[in-house]
């Protein structure tokens, strides 16, 4: 009873709250990092160094008037932000934050569940998020959101193909689809898969940036062309849900990349015995640290690179990343057979 019901429910509650808090503070971190890159201070007024800014933002967004356009499709318009946010949150069910730990005399795994199709589950759930974007654009009954949502969908579908291709070669290397299994395969190999599959790592990272609509691929939110993107007609808390989903997706991509390529909860160079003192740091701290590095790189890139043009984006997806993905599968297969 305790092991099958209470502990999983507690883990879900803690994880969801942690993610939502992390998401709100990601917004602050993004503003701060971009400000520092541009020699500004960023938010400074609310709390010390602006630390309470996310809370002020949340209160402001909840207090705003909630507008539904007259000609919008009311049901779909209401459902769209929820459809965007829910897949971003339920992916965390299979992310392993750490191995089993002893807690109050009980062995508790630091993941909610470990299903034997974990990686496919991540891909499948992520493919559902696109509905929210299409529906938001369509239900608004307004031309710019519709154009933006068509762009977003085309981009998401194209890059999903590339990312899935890359994951096939990773699964060939790991020999399992379970997320915990993939981390354990890296422990047994004594090497992070980022070093075994460097091409796959780079393509996954680029694809992940495109799938989360982050700069330099933030085409669906190109303000200069689309007055704001697929969520132009949304206001107040519904608009906030889209933002929560975008940042939650960034965290998803970062945690998945950490699990697949940076050894999850493993310390750096798990095969080198001389670095054993690094094991003093708890495993989940390594995991969070690696995830944070990814998130920081996301922000860094946004502050540094200009936006791609739409045709360049499509060309990169279809003519560069997908062929690399297929080639990578072939090479991985051949090497796997030869060894």
């Amino acid at each position, binding site marked *: 009873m305790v092991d099958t019901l209470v502990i999983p429910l507690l883990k879900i509650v803690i994880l969801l709250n942690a993610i939502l808090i992390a998401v709100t503070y990601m917004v602050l971190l993004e503003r701060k990092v971009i400000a520092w890159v541009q020699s500004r201070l960023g938010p400074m007024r609310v709390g010390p160094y602006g630390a309470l800014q996310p809370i002020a933002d949340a209160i402001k967004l909840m207090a705003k008037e909630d507008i539904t356009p007259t000609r919008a*499709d009311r*049901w*779909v318009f209401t459902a769209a932000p929820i459809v965007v946010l829910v897949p971003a949150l339920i992916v965390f069910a299979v992310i392993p934050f750490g191995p089993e730990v002893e807690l109050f005399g009980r062995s508790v795994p630091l993941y909610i569940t470990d*299903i*034997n*199709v974990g990686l*496919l*589950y991540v*891909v*499948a*759930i992520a*493919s*559902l998020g*696109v*509905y929210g974007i*299409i*529906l938001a654009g*369509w239900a608004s009954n307004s031309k710019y959101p519709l154009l933006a949502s*068509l762009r977003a*969908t085309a981009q998401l*579908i194209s890059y999903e193909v590339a990312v899935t291709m890359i994951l096939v070669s990773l699964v060939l290397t790991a020999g399992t*689809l379970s997320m915990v299994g993939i981390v354990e395969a890296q422990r047994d190999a004594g090497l992070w898969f980022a070093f075994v599959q460097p091409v796959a790592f780079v393509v996954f990272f680029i694809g992940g940036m495109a799938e989360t609509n982050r700069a330099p691929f933030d085409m669906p939110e190109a303000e200069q062309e689309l007055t704001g993107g697929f969520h132009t007609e949304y206001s107040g808390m519904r608009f906030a849900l889209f933002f929560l989903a975008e940042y939650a997706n960034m965290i998803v991509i970062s945690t998945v990349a950490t699990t697949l390529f940076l050894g999850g909860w493993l310390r750096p160079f798990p095969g080198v015995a001389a670095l054993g003192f690094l094991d003093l740091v708890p495993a989940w701290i390594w995991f969070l640290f690696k995830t944070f590095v990814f998130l920081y790189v996301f922000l860094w890139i946004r502050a540094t690179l200009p936006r791609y043009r739409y045709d360049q984006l499509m060309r990169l997806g279809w003519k560069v990343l997908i062929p690399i993905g297929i080639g990578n599968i072939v090479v991985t297969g051949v090497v796997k057979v030869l060894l």
Partner: protein
Amino acid sequence: MGEAIVFYGLSALILGFAVMVISTRDTVHSVLFLVVNFLLVAMLYVLLGAEFLAVIQVLVYAGGILVLYLFVVMLVNLKRPPETYQDPRRQTRLGLALSGAVLAEFVAIGVYGYTSPEGLPAVAAQAVEGGNVEQVGWVLYTNYLIPFEVASILLLVAMIGAIVLAQRDV
């Protein structure tokens, strides 16, 4: 007991949403009900212990094919209510005959499975074991190799056909 409640609950929801798909006026809503329907079918697969099939159902049908349906339906903008427009090429009799044939097939399978107990349970047992990815792969690449390859060639032909059609006006 609990499993039976979940099964009948899910089945009722699936049938309910299937009726909504064909009875709603707005085509976009119809596609959305179909998405929900497919997700519920995926849950039915989970209940049968076939997680691989469930995830593939979500990935391919709900996340892939229906997105394209939604695209097409959104772009052709079928806002007209159905009674003002009747397709002149509509084949009511042929449609009735085909749906009758499909119904007869389902009934035949049901009757066959019910009367010969060794017929269907063997398949069902295999399906439970096949929830594992390795088992699906094993069966697919040994027992069903030829159907699998035929399906692959069909998809390849469709892909080449799409490229040829798209390139015509370049």
